[in-house]
């Protein structure tokens, strides 16, 4: 497995979001292999029946994934050629968190991101961090574009792998939000103490260039890739990632 450090640096990383076993297990594994030379890190979603904070494109992948939950996780073991973090909803695993995190570690995940943790299970943040560390996983945090400043400070103190700022209201849907302002606010609060990655509705080289100028440490591509995949297969998805990667390294 290729290990690329996720840290605060001048080099913005390209992160690809995929829902495990979408559109099928075989194609999913093929995608991982095909794009691994371009992508720095994978964010892999555990298919769920209730992808509550996701937009329509990612929701569709959860519904259409071949396997669900832990079964989909099993597919990852030894099959992800790059570092990856698991994205899962706490709602699905709150009653068996330890078991779930143990599984994440077993399949080789580097970290775990639970987008509903800070909104619906705020009292469980420290438990989540402790359990992650117990299994050698690095906790990751998702924050929205209107997250309380003091609470961001608290998250930084917990030394996550990264803090993921959602630029839009949900994944894949672009609203007229002044993302430069929001990124600057949270970059200023976090400073260089923790990597800041961003995602939601990023789809063009211009988007990537703008975000790079804003000194984010990673950008996550999800819905745009899935749409390309649906439109004309892996080749189109690959071309999109190549164009975004070029914009990142220019």
């Amino acid at each position, binding site marked *: 497995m290729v290990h690329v450090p996720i840290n605060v640096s001048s080099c913005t990383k390209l992160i690809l979001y995929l829902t495990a076993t979408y559109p099928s297990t075989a194609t999913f594994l093929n995608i991982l292999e095909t794009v691994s030379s371009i992508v720095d890190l994978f964010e892999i979603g555990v298919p769920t029946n209730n992808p509550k*904070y996701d937009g329509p494109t990612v929701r569709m992948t959860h519904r259409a994934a071949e396997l669900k939950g832990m079964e989909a996780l099993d597919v990852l073991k030894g099959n992800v050629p790059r570092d990856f973090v698991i994205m899962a909803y706490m709602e699905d695993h709150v009653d068996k968190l330890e078991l779930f995190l143990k599984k994440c570690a077993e399949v080789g995940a580097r970290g775990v991101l639970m987008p509903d943790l800070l*909104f619906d299970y705020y009292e469980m943040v420290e438990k989540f961090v402790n359990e992650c560390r117990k299994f050698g996983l690095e906790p990751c945090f998702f924050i929205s574009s*209107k997250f309380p400043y003091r609470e961001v400070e608290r998250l930084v103190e917990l030394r996550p792998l990264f803090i993921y700022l959602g630029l839009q209201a949900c994944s894949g849907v672009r*609203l007229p939000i002044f993302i430069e302002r*929001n990124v600057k606010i949270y970059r200023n609060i976090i400073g260089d103490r923790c990597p800041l990655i961003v995602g939601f509705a990023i789809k063009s080289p211009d988007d990537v260039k703008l975000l790079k100028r804003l000194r984010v440490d990673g950008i996550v591509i999800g819905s745009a890739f899935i749409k390309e995949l649906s439109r004309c297969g892996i080749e189109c998805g690959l071309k999109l990632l190549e164009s975004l990667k070029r914009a990142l390294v220019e």
Partner: protein
Amino acid sequence: MVTVPSHWYNIAADLPIPLPPVRDPDTGPSRIELLTKILPSVLIDQEFSGERWIPIPDEVRRMYEKVGRPTPYRRAENLERALGLKDVHIYYKFEGVLPSGSHKLNTALAQAYYAKQDGAEEVVTETSAGQWGLATSIAAALFGMRCTIFMTRASYRSKPQRRILMQVLGATVHPSPSELTEIGRKLLEQDREHPGSLGIAISEAVEYVLKEPEKRRYLPGSVMEFVLIHQTVIGLEAIEQMPEQPDIVIACVGGGSNFGGFTYPMIGMKLREEGFEKTRFIAVESKAAPKLTSGRYMYDHPDTSGILPLIKMYTLGKDFVPPPIHAAGLRYHGAAPSLSILVKLGIVEAVAYEQEEVMKAAQLFARCEGIIPAPESAHAIKAVIDVARKSSPGTVIAFNLSGHGLLDTDAYSKVLGIQ
């Protein structure tokens, strides 16, 4: 000399826990995506802004001055005497001096300004008591735009005064449910005398906008966070005007814009440990729509037909139709997400009152202070009286008198038996 604030305040930056994101329901098209066809674009940005202080555009500030901001902050000495209070001081911020007669104009001006910036020709909204509709009509007139209002049928009949004023200002006013929309027709089929509700009127307004989204923009009167943000001019001015820091701050709640507008700048200081450390904040609602005291904290639609995205709030359910009451502005099933969090965390206390006791308090206030309060605002007055009577000497109470009741003679005549 107090001036109009240069910025609005966004409490999201200071909340002890984050605001849960808006959500799409499990089925149907993305309601979040739909927002771009409904709302002025800057309002969407403000709804998702991480900025603590949001600059007020110069043109909006000039409009605030033009309509009479800053509004006065006064001491209710006669009320204190009438209650026999010993060294308990009561102050009120009076939004009723604005031409709309209520605080609603603070956000109507901002929203109409942004709608015009988007190239919209017509603004569309809902109203119950008519305060929001009147404010929107004034804002539309000042910015030279057409205005269409869906007014809950119960109020359309019982409160013709504000409806007439809206029409004088050039607005077109429809009783809701109406025959103009699918949801309206469906409800009228079930009950020709349906009293309507704010949730239904919102649904109709949104559906109407979606028929011509390039020309029309929907302006919400409460609940959305940007509405509360605009209303913070009230509290920001009040802080500058206060001769003494209050121990207890009170305001009424329909969707939360009046409460948030008055209290959030103070709650923000408390959360940042910059003042108001010992201040209690009390939200007062009607027992006819007791979402904060009897509702559930959950994701729900702000509108009855579920066109808008889900928001997490205290709610009685989107289909809840409150009984017709005089404080029609409080007849709403949910409370703004930020207010809901503050209540859930115990930072804001909530109480609910029956109409009769509220209107008696209103009468007492009128006879003491010479101002006839709106029935909505009278809920705050009732709470102030109850709290003041139990307070120890030295206590300072402040409340927001969000509107006057000069157009609510129907309410006063019925409840107080005045012919």
